[in-house]
């Protein structure tokens, strides 16, 4: 290594990964249901998809966590996004592809993806 740019490149790559270990009250939390029902309907690839995207983009203010069963097993995999000071948004029947869309629309641009939220599934 002979330049500061090389050092910076390593730092930025690592910051995304070490960001998993940060803790702050202003973080946006992405919570994936990972009980038996969630795992059986494919929550694991959804969880890793979110986690990888957040780390690749080095978004230290977003933490991707898992949780247990919230009781809506028929809608699994369920992903809840909690931003400080905003209402919780619940996405249902998620897939890694949908996760990518939610990541780009909701987490990056701040626009809720209405077609995947729980209200779109509920009987009218």
């Amino acid at each position, binding site marked *: 290594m002979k330049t500061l740019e090389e050092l910076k490149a390593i730092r930025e790559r690592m910051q995304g*990964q070490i960001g998993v270990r940060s803790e702050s009250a202003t973080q946006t939390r992405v919570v994936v249901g990972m009980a038996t029902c969630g795992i059986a309907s494919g929550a694991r690839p959804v969880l890793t998809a979110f986690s*990888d995207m957040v780390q690749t983009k080095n978004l230290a203010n977003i933490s991707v966590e898992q949780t247990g069963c919230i009781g809506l097993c028929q809608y699994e995999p369920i992903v809840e996004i909690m931003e400080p000071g905003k209402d919780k948004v619940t996405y249902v029947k998620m897939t890694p592809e949908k996760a990518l869309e939610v990541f780009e629309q909701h987490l990056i641009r701040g626009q809720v993806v209405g077609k995947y939220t729980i209200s779109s599934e509920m009987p009218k």
Partner: protein
Amino acid sequence: MYRSHVLVCGGTGCTSSGSKKIIDTLQAEIDKNGLTKEVGVVQTGCFGLCALGPIMIVYPEATFYSMVQVEDIAEIVSEHLLKGRPVARLVYDETVTEEGIKSLNDTDFYKKQKRIALRNCGVINPENIDEYIGTHGYEALGKVLTEYTPDQVIQTILDSGLRGRGGGGFPTGLKWKLAKGNDADQKYVCCNADEGDPGAFMDRSVLEGDPHVVLEAMAIAGYAIGATQGYIYVRAEYPIAIDRLKVAIEQAREYGLLGKDIFGSGFDFDIDLRLGAGAFVCGEETALMTSIEGNRGEPRPRPPFPAQKGLFGKPTILNNVETYANIPQIILNGAPWFAAMGTEKSKGTKVFALGGKIKNTGLVEIPMGTTLREVIEEIGGGIPNGKKFKAAQTGGPSGGCIPAEHFDIAIDYDNLIAIGSMMGSGGLIVMDEDNCMVDIAKFFLEFTVDESCGKCVPCRIGTKRMYEMLEKITKGQGTLEDLDKLEELCYYIKENALCGLGQTAPNPVLSTLRYFRDEYVAHVVDKKCPAGVCKDLLSYTVDPEKCVGCTMCAKVCPASAIDGKVKEKHVINQEKCVKCGACMTKCRFGAISKK
């Protein structure tokens, strides 16, 4: 990329309570559950809460598990890592509230701390240079080499007000300035990692948890004074620290962060390790350098100071591990940031190793000026078993005792010296009403007698005589005249010993004489040890009113010193009694007392 990181403490404390095996089991369970690509296991340095080891923390939730056993691992993996349900019974109870699990940073132990020197301990994997770089590692070195002149580096350190964390508290920037001012074909940068105070382990934890910070700071120091070679003098009894330092030096060389032409600036710097055999005197700077040179570790008179004629007769600076750990942060955040913390003459933070009669044994880093009460009662969790605080010992064998009357003192270099103790390297041993202060003084003197190198007479013979007088007093054979003689000898040694070891050796005696003279007098005049520690001044007796004659005491007595039949009052034969206290612990009726 991992979605979850499990950090397991690999510091000395947790390693000895079995964290190595926990890491192996954890990895095996993770593999078994098909989580190998999702969950990363990271061995870190010390978290500070050594009393609760082995410690494990799971991110991103930041769930803090304490006293984890190998048998618990399968449950943690299948419940928490697989299904996202933290194992409540293993979560550190201070973080559990009615509203759920609160952040570790909000617990009493961490809330008041400010971690600068320890900032990476318990956060990164010390054996992975990339993780250190990920937390802004080597950025300060890069900044210094590309933007600063050596004089600017020294000015920044001077402005920050940083003082040596090894004991003396000499301004670090001034030390560097003096060394820079002396021209020579070769200069040296040394790191004193010969931590010898009983009960102190902060330098060890920095080396084990964040070894690169020391390498980076030494390179910065080398640039500032014009040195190209550094030595870390570390004691051989710190095997984990040595291993991690070796790994770190190797990685830094591979990345070109040590070696020739660092960052293309033309600056060369390399570091080698020197292992010490663990002599206390080698923590003294001139003895340490003599030892690096390959000679027997003995101090020599100063002047000339190391900045003039140090290692191999060349200008040398010598700083302690914790001092170095502050340097990169000062460069990155600026001198005003550092100088804004602490008291008027003591800036920044200080790491203390809490030990003795305290609930949270471990490592804490606090801003200078925090009171002793805050450290002991709030961060340390107070004294166990409802006992009363008697004194806190700081500075190890060179320091003194702080009595309860100074419980609200703001901790900094000058305040501690004013009340007859010293900062030292940062050992803080808490004593309660069951500790005898004469016995404590004797303990430290025994240590200095052992560790005196023997070169100068006041230390070699003086400390021995002091020890003998203390022994006489604890045996009840002392006189009031002995106390005066003892004090006189203390001052004589302080003034005449060659190096810091001897000059400070009388401090534990002087400070206990100053604050606890009544205990000395009780030993000498009343032939009693008020705390009930000195065996020769104790006697165990059976209260005939309370004794029911159960024979339990007679059964446990290893010396067969208790006579008595079933349902009859028992009597202790004082001539046979070895004062082990076994009878008193066993008696269910509280009939045995010691006086």
